């Protein structure tokens, strides 16, 4: 019986080892077949996502010239969503030739930005051209976007003592003679700065410039300020203008409704760390009374203990 069993066991072992060999062989074969594919850097089956680029020009209030990029890619649901970590090449046109000036990587929101130099190569019409490209990105399909804009100047003026609170924005561009020359019919938008963005000052906050390149707006008096001094930062913007891109300018005045400081942000309340006095008083009286009674009882017991000696 025992020997028989042993033989059976051995047979089983033999069988399993044979099986293992077979699987090993198959696995090796699969690995060998797959190896060339694995070695390819950008495998064909790892589909690249369809991508799109947005390129815009922004001249900030400090006169710095910037470009802003937004990269989007089609996601699993088929929608265009922000594409992070896309590698972007930025080119500038100089003498009819595209020169690579920088490579950028998009952030989590699919955004990237860079500051441009002050003197840019311009063409005859005083325009300069920028191009952004996605090239050879492992995750996104190639895409490119071009931009051709002209520099302009926007100034926002206000008189802090003005009771009518008139905001005046002036838009000029450099004329052929190098002198500033007013820009007409440019749409200037007036905003106040808020914590997370720019809020329109009122209902009709878009004003077109007149022949002198001026746009004016009377600031409403009910805009709350974010501090107790009533400071407001007003921003005038020409937004996504075909010729000039986006141009910003800002100015400050104490024209806001001052912030009413909360007298006691942490009052004694049920939701607060500190309990209302009435509650403390109630607990102190009730439980103080009970515990005093306990101590009286304990005191009596001590007396009981001491009285034993009398006997």
């Amino acid at each position, binding site marked *: 019986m025992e020997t028989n069993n042993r033989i059976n066991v051995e047979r089983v072992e033999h069988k399993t080892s044979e099986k293992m060999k077979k699987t090993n062989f198959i696995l090796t074969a699969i690995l060998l077949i797959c190896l060339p594919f694995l070695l390819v850097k950008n495998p064909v089956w790892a589909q690249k996502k369809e991508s799109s680029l947005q390129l815009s020009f922004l001249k*900030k*209030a*400090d006169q*710095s010239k*910037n470009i802003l990029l937004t990269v989007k890619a089609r996601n*699993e*649901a088929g*929608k265009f*969503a922000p594409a*992070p*970590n896309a590698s972007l090449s930025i080119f500038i046109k100089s003498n009819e030739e595209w020169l690579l000036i920088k490579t950028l990587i998009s*952030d*989590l*929101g699919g955004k990237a*930005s860079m*500051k441009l130099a002050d003197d840019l190569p311009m063409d005859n019409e005083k325009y300069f051209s920028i191009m952004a490209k996605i090239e050879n990105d492992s995750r996104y399909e190639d895409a490119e976007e071009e931009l051709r804009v002209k520099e302009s100047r926007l100034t926002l003026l206000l008189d802090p003592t003005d009771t009518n609170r008139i905001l005046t924005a002036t838009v000029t561009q450099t004329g052929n003679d190098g002198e500033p020359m007013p820009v007409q019919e440019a749409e200037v938008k007036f*905003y106040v*700065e*808020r*914590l*997370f*963005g*720019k*809020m*329109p000052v009122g209902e009709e906050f878009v004003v077109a410039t007149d022949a002198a390149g001026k746009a004016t707006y009377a600031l409403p008096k009910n*805009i*709350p*300020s*974010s*501090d*107790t*001094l009533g*400071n407001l930062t007003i921003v005038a913007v020409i937004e996504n203008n075909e010729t000039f891109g986006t141009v910003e300018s*800002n100015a*400050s005045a104490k024209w806001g409704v001052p*912030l009413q*400081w*909360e007298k006691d*942000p*942490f009052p004694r309340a*049920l*939701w*607060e*760390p500190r309990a209302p006095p009435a509650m403390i008083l109630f607990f102190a009286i009730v439980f103080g009374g009970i515990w005093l009674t306990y101590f009286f009882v304990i005191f009596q017991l001590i007396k009981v203990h001491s009285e034993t000696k009398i006997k």
Partner: protein
Amino acid sequence: MNNSNKKTTSRRDFLQKGLLAGTAITASVIGLKKVFSEEEMQSADKSIVFSPNGKVFTVDTNKLCEYTAPPPTNDGARIGIAGKKFVMVIDLAKCDGCKACTECCQAMHFTEPDKEWIKVFKMQDAETLIPYYFPKPCFHCDNPPCTKVCPVNATFKRQDGIVLIDNERCIGCRSCMAACPYSTRFFNWSHPVQSKEVTNIPYSPEHGFPRRMGTVEKCDFCPHMIRQGKMPTCVDGCPMGAIWFGDQNEDAVTNSEGITMRLSQLIEDNAAYRHLEDLGTEPRVYYLPPKNRKYPKPDMNEQPQLQKVKHGEMNMGNMQM
């Protein structure tokens, strides 16, 4: 196939976001200055700065310097940002139930997939009423039932209206979970699954991670992002611009499309309401009714099923007698 693909990408994003969030926290800027790039900092002449103890002053921007600050301490996180009252407005007419907000939030806070700090419900109040998608974060109530019942002051309300949890103090009694009528709170039942990068980040109640076993967590309105001048990640991540966020004191809210509106105007024009107002919790989240929707309404016949899988990896614990 599709599923596995999704998983790998999301994990990659997860790790990248983790690293970025880590660096972002260490390099935070003093007070509440709006800093989006270094260039901007050198230029603007004056800045309004809030000191940590709640004072406001104006200084030359040039004199402001970026410094590497540790994450707000528990004491700092308890006080909150002075002079602010954060509010959220969710436009139900714009929400198409895509759950991008949930995904963004989960990635930023390194939450496990079944913990949805902001959860999109399919709601239908009655059979004759229309169904709608209902994203629900924490409401950061002004009369917070959760904070009232906490025995150790582990959950607290700050002066900027945000309700947070200090998971270094929480004793895990789960009173707050019982008290919250909106089922907003989650408990770390088992050892939390989190990577080394996450556990190495110093803890702050302002972002809630690294999470600890036996403590409660919930939506925190991303105060660590606000301190960097950024909006909460669900707001930023909403592709429909359906979520607005801002400061009630400034009467302004901003959405992911960068549009800033007057809060009072938004509330007035859309007849905003707050969920379960009659409970008296005074939520800081407003809803705009789903009027004139731009997307198909949710199919209520496709009732969301319970997931077949069980929570966590504690299979032994799930065995039923």
